[in-house]
């Protein structure tokens, strides 16, 4: 909406200007009478409401980045030398592609709102450690430039850019995924046997192949406490995976704690642009994602189970938005 201006000829004139100092509930009229100031501009005309909350996009993104910070800290601590260059490249690439995208597609620059940092971080925690810098730039070109900017930027895309970046990496450079020394191990079936017996190791200590999962839970609790995400998406996703794996005769706890299921549940599936709007639709969306993830883990056995699950659910987002109405017209 454009800012409306008004053209009234009669200039509003303020006759009396008295200064008042209000100190700690004391009403004390200042002796000084200000000079009459005439202003040329008319009163601003917009529609109600005239006050807005302090809620802004960057503030909301900040909550997410703060929630990821325990995981970042653990990643630094555990494998700093490998992790730092990846982090630098991912954030730089995300910024560059967003800025280039905004310029090419003639949109106002909004890179400071932190959305691309969040996407870059989500991507970073999903890839194996040995992905090289050009691999990251290549993947983020797909994810951020093609998957986000060319579709119209924040709010317009319906598939998660980080997942798209990951997908491009698995398609074009499958060799990165052959060994499993990854910050967040995505390759589920390749989990060493002794770890799968004891889920608490996965949770607290992590392994050679995967970071521990507790920092994600800390971040998730923060997100839920801040009401930054609804409970529907993560819990339905986790519950559907747990139930399905139990039915299929696996250990549900190991199933959830291995791979990047927790990260996806709290930080990827809850991404706003690509998830449905209402709680009901989000529950259905998470159910689709969970079922497809678990099914493809079991039968396809592919390392991209999570990718499949997320992308398949996000295909349904527009449909869910349109047909799961909170209230239908009588």
């Amino acid at each position, binding site marked *: *909406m454009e800012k409306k201006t008004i053209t009234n000829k009669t200039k509003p004139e*303020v006759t009396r200007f008295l*200064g008042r100092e209000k100190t700690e509930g004391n009403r004390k009229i200042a002796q000084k009478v200000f000079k009459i100031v005439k202003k040329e501009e008319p009163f*601003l005309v917009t*529609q*109600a409401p005239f006050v807005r909350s302090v*809620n802004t*996009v960057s503030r909301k993104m900040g909550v997410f980045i703060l929630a990821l910070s325990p995981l970042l800290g653990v990643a630094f601590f555990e494998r700093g030398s490998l992790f730092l260059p990846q982090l630098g490249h991912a954030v730089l690439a995300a910024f560059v592609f967003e800025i280039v995208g905004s310029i090419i597609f003639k949109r106002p620059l909004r890179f400071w709102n932190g959305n691309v940092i969040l996407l870059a971080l989500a991507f970073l925690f999903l890839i194996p450690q040995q992905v090289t810098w050009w691999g990251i730039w290549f993947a983020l070109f797909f994810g951020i430039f093609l998957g986000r900017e060319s579709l119209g930027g924040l709010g317009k895309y319906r598939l998660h850019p980080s997942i798209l970046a990951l997908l491009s990496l698995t398609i074009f450079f499958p060799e990165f995924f052959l060994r499993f020394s990854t910050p967040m191990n995505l390759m589920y079936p390749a989990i060493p046997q002794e770890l799968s017996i004891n889920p608490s190791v996965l949770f607290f200590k992590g392994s050679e192949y995967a970071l521990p999962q507790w920092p994600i839970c800390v971040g998730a609790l923060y997100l839920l406490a801040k009401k930054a995400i609804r409970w529907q998406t993560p819990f339905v996703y986790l519950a559907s995976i747990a139930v399905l794996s139990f039915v299929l005769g696996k250990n549900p706890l190991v199933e959830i704690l291995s791979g990047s299921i927790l990260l996806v549940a709290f930080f990827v599936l809850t991404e706003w642009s690509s998830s449905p709007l209402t709680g009901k639709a989000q529950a259905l969306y998470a159910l689709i994602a969970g079922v497809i993830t678990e099914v493809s883990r079991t039968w396809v056995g592919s390392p991209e189970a999570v990718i499949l699950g997320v992308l398949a659910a996000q295909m349904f987002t527009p449909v869910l938005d349109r047909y799961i109405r909170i209230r239908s017209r009588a």
Partner: protein
Amino acid sequence: MAGIEIALHHDVSLLDPVIKTPDTPSAVVIPLLQHRGIIAKPIVSVGDRVFKGQVIADSNEPGALPVHASISGRVSSVGPAVHPKEGIHVSIAITSDGQDQWKQGCHVEQTQDDLKSLSSENLIQMSREFGLCDLRSGEITHQKLKEGIESSVDTLILNAAHMEPFVTSDSILIKLKAVEILRGFEWLVRASGASKAYIVFSERDFENQEIISSKLFSLKISNIEIVQSKGQYPYDIESNLLSEVLKKKVPLKTKPEDVGVHFYSLATAFAFYEAVQWRKPLIERVVTVSGVCVVYPQNVWARIGMSYESVFEVCGGLLRYPYRLILGSSMTGTSQTDLQTPVIKNTDAILALPKEDTPFHESESCIRCGDCIPVCPVSINPAMIVEDAMNQQWKKAFKFSPDLCVECGNCTYVCPSKIPMVEWIKETKNQLEAI
């Protein structure tokens, strides 16, 4: 019921708990359209001498309401002038003669004997004669009463749960004129022939509820009950109040008259009291003058037709030049352009707000965060309506029931992208009416 926690800023204008009576204004401009309906014909012409309370426009058509002079003096012009809602509209300007003289027969206190014999028809006739309309929505009172009798409305609800940021004109009336409000409400109940009467308060407004309940007790009024409603802003969603009062679940779409209920606002009850007890036409009302730019924010007995500028002067003038001038509250009000705009019957507040309180926000595109959905009191999905409206897909938008929207402004208030959502939803409603 969903809503938001909102700062009410009522203390700003309640620091001085009085209703200030200003000096007689030197001139007034009385618009003929002050209610919901059609305008009456002016029956005075330029140069005529009029008294306070004299009818200056009248018509026998159903949607018309007589208009009264609010000061005594001479008619200085009849013609177009600024109107708070319509831009420019027909108005009658009167210059004061300084005497402020009532018309014969107006403003005379009635004795108990006079009042005992009043029947329902008399009261309804009176409310027309004294130009009563709802002091918030502008519905014509005598028509509403008549419709109530025809459609056998048997319950009246006095809506004291209506609380908006900055607006204290109802609250101050309860604090200072509680007995009058209750008497007025009793008259309204008698006029409508209803058998049950309730006053609803929001649970946030406990202080005023205590005042009314103590008055009910000391006046030994037993046929009026107090009901407390729960929920956050907006506090007076009708279906919510109805379910509290009727103690059963009322669907959102129900109109009050479908379940035999009519709502009246506090200020209307007070105006009805004055009309019946004092034979006083509706020529003044309580207006809250508030906002950081006003020297003494307080409530004022403003004559109908007083300009905003003179109302501000009653409150000590303006501390500095306001960035916005608002009629009504900061959540649901209307922007005003001119300080010469007159006060009309449903002007409940005038706010002069500076830039730091109400900055202009550039809107960005929707990030689909869904924040607007849990705050909507009528549980619709404003984000989808706005998305479709921005693409001009009015038919698709209609599927999300924009007609239920009460234009409370919650969705716009919380939106992190600062999208003017209420504007889009109103536009959708207009488009659908056009189809």
